C-alpha cells in the first residue's frame, strides 16, 4: 500500500515533532524534508526527531534561486550534502529537478553535457550512500528542458545508474502530459517517487485532476512508493491537509478487503 507523505513546510507546527503529530493524526505516514536550508546545520534537530519516531525518508532539494556556473556548483554541493544526510537518517533519497533551471528554454528535452555531468556525479554519490536521486520534470514555466516524464526517463537511461530514478509530479504532468495516466504507465520501470498536488497546486481534491485515473495508473504500473503532498503554498488550511490521506485512499483502487 502506498504510504502518504507530506512536505515539511506545509504541515502546521513549529517543530518537526509537532508537525509529525499533526501528520499522524491526519493519516500521513512520513514527512518529506525541505532542502532549502543547509541540512548539515539541522542535523542535531533531525537526529532528535528521528529518535522520537518522526519518519523522514526523503528530501525535496528545491530549485536554486540564482543561475550561472557558480550557482550550479553550489546546487550540486547542496544535493550531495542532502544525499549524505538522508542516508545517515536511514532515508531513501533526494528529489531534484535537472538543474539549474534556466528561463526561456524550448522544452525540447535535450540534456546538456552539464546536466549529464551533474547527474552522473550525484548519482554516483547517491549509490555510495545507498540512497537514490529522484529526477523531477517540472512544467515549462519552471524548467526549460525537462518537462515530461519521457524526457526524465531519457536522462536516466542515458546515465545508466540504478541510483537515479524519475519523480513524477501530478501538477506538472497536468500541464505537460497529453495523457498523464498513459505517461505514468510508459515511465513505470523508471518511476521511483511521486509528488501529488491538484490542478491548481493545492492539495489533492482541491482542484479538478482525474485522481482515480492517475492513481489507477500508478497502481496498474505497480508503483508502491510514497505519494507526497507537495507544492501548495504554505498556510494551506489545516482541514484541507488533514483531508488528503482519506481522499487519496478513497481514490486509490481497492487493495482487497480484510477477509471476514
Amino acid at each position, binding site marked *: 500500500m502506498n504510504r502518504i507523505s507530506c512536505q515539511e513546510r506545509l504541515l502546521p507546527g513549529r517543530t518537526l515533532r509537532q508537525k509529525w503529530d499533526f501528520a499522524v493524526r491526519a493519516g500521513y505516514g512520513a514527512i518529506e524534508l525541505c532542502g532549502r536550508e543547509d541540512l548539515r546545520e539541522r542535523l542535531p534537530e533531525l537526529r532528535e526527531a528521528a529518535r522520537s519516531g518522526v519518519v523522514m525518508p526523503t528530501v525535496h532539494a528545491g530549485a536554486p534561486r540564482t543561475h550561472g556556473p557558480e550557482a550550479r556548483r553550489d546546487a550540486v554541493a547542496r544535493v550531495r550534502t542532502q544525499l549524505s544526510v538522508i542516508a545517515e537518517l536511514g532515508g531513501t533519497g533526494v528529489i531534484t529537478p535537472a538543474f539549474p533551471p534556466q528561463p526561456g528554454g524550448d522544452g525540447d528535452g535535450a540534456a546538456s553535457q552539464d546536466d549529464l555531468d551533474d547527474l552522473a556525479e550525484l548519482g554516483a554519490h547517491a549509490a555510495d550512500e545507498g540512497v537514490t536521486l529522484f529526477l523531477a520534470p517540472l512544467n515549462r514555466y519552471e524548467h526549460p528542458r525537462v518537462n515530461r516524464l519521457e524526457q526524465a526517463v531519457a536522462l536516466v537511461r542515458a546515465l545508466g545508474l540504478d541510483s537515479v530514478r524519475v519523480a513524477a509530479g501530478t501538477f506538472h504532468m497536468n500541464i505537460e502530459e*497529453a495523457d498523464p495516466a498513459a505517461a505514468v504507465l510508459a515511465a513505470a520501470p523508471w518511476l521511483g517517487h511521486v509528488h501529488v498536488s491538484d490542478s491548481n497546486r493545492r492539495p489533492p481534491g482541491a482542484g479538478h485532476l482525474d485522481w482515480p485515473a492517475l492513481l489507477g495508473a500508478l497502481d496498474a504500473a505497480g508503483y508502491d512508493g510514497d505519494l507526497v503532498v507537495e507544492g501548495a503554498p504554505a498556510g494551506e488550511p489545516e482541514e484541507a491537509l488533514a483531508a488528503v490521506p482519506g481522499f487519496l485512499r478513497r481514490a486509490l483502487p481497492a487493495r482487497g478487503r480484510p477477509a471476514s
Partner: protein
Amino acid sequence: MSSSAILEGVRPDAADLVGLRRAAARVLLGNWTGSSTVPSRTLYPHQWSWDSAFVALGLRHLSPRRAQRELESLLGAQWDDGRLPHIVFDAATPEGAYFPGPDFWRAGPFPGVRTSGIVQPPVHAFAVWEVFRADPAEAERRGFLARAYPRLAAWHRYLRTRRDLGGHGLAAIVHPWESGMDNSPCWDGPLARVDPVPPSRFRRRDLDHAAPGDRPTDLDYGRYVRLAAHYRDHGYDDASAPHAFAVEDPAFNALLALSELALARIAAAVGADPAPHRRRADEVVAALLDRLWDASSGLFLCRDLRGGGLIREHGVTGLVPLAVPGLPVAADLLRTACGARFGLGRVHMVPSYDLTGPAFDPARYWRGPSWFNIGRLVHLGLLEHGAAERAAALRRSMLRAAARSRFAEYVDPLTGEGHGATGFAWTAATVLDLIAHDPPKVDEVGQNS
C-alpha cells in the same frame, strides 16, 4: 503497449486478482484515446458503439470521468434521426486502416465527424445509469445524466419507430453487424438471399491482423458489403431502403428493454417522467415473448421478416433476455443455458452458438467462441434470477479465460484458447467490472499490500 507487456507479472490462474486487475487497467489506459477507447490498437482503431458501452462498465471503476466521456463522445456522434452509429471514425487514423472505412460509408451527423450508417445493440442507457452509479457526485457536477437523457430518449425513439419494420413493437436489424454478433449462423438463412460483392471489389483489412480461420469468410464479407452499400445508396433511410435483410433479434431487443428500464431511472433522476420508459420496457418484453420465444427449445429465436418465420438456429442471442428483470421464462432459459446447447459450467464461459448445432465452429468469431460481453450479460441474468452459484462459477471461468488469453477478443469454449485481438478493451473492462463486483479478499490475493 505490447501484448506481452500487458500481462507481465500476472499468474495465469486468475487467483492473482490484484495482478489481473492491474493488467486490465493497463489495457484500458493503453487503449484510451483522450475521449474514448479503441477496442484494439491493431484490429479496431476507431470507436464502436456497443464496445463503448461495455468498456464504460469497466472504466467506471478506473475513472468515472473517463467512463462518462466514453459514452458522451459516442452520444456526441448521434444523427438527427436519433440513431447512434455503430462506428465513429477517428479522424487521425488513415482511411486504409479499417474496411469498410469512412469513404465507404460516406456518413456522419455533421461535417468533421464521420461514422458508419448502421447501429449496434442499445446497451447505452444501461451503461449510462451504471456509470452514473459509480460516482453520482462527479456525474452531477458534470451534468452527465441531464445531457445524456434526451439523446438516449431520441435513440430509443428511433429504434421504436423507424426500426419497427415488422410492426409488432420490436426493433429490426437491417445488417448482421447491427446484432454485434456479425457472422452468427442465425444470419446464414437470411444472408443466403443476398448477392455477394465479389472479393476482388474490396480489400478486407481484418485479415491483416487476425487469422482467416478466426474471421468471417470472404463470401460472407461480400454479402455484408452488398447490404451496407444498398442501405447507403438509399441514404440510410429506413422507410425507402428495401432492406433485403430484416431480422428481429432477441439480444438487441432484450438490451432495449433493459435500457428502457435504466432510462426510467435516469428520467426520474433528471426530473422527467419515468412511466413511459417502464411501459415501453414492458411492451418490448411482451413482444419478445409473443414474437421470438420458442417453447420447444426453451430459447428465444430470431425472426426473419423477409423469409418469414422463426430462424431455427440456436444462438446465444436467445439467452441474453435472461438479463431482463422479471422475465417470465427465466427458469426455462436457465435450463437451456445449462443444457447441451450452451453447456454452462462445463465449457469455458458461454458459447456464442449451439454446441450441438451443425454450424458450430469453436474458433470462428460468432459461430461458437465465447465472448466476454455476452458472458457478463448472462452473469447479470444468473444473478437476477437467483442462480448465484452458477454466476460465481461463470465469473471464475471468465477471469481465468481473460488471464490465460491476455485479454483476448474471444475464446474457444472447448479449450479456453484465445482468438482474435489481444489487449481487447471490453475483455479488460469486463474483468474490472467482475472484480469490482466481488473485490479480492486478503486470503484470495495473498500479499495484500
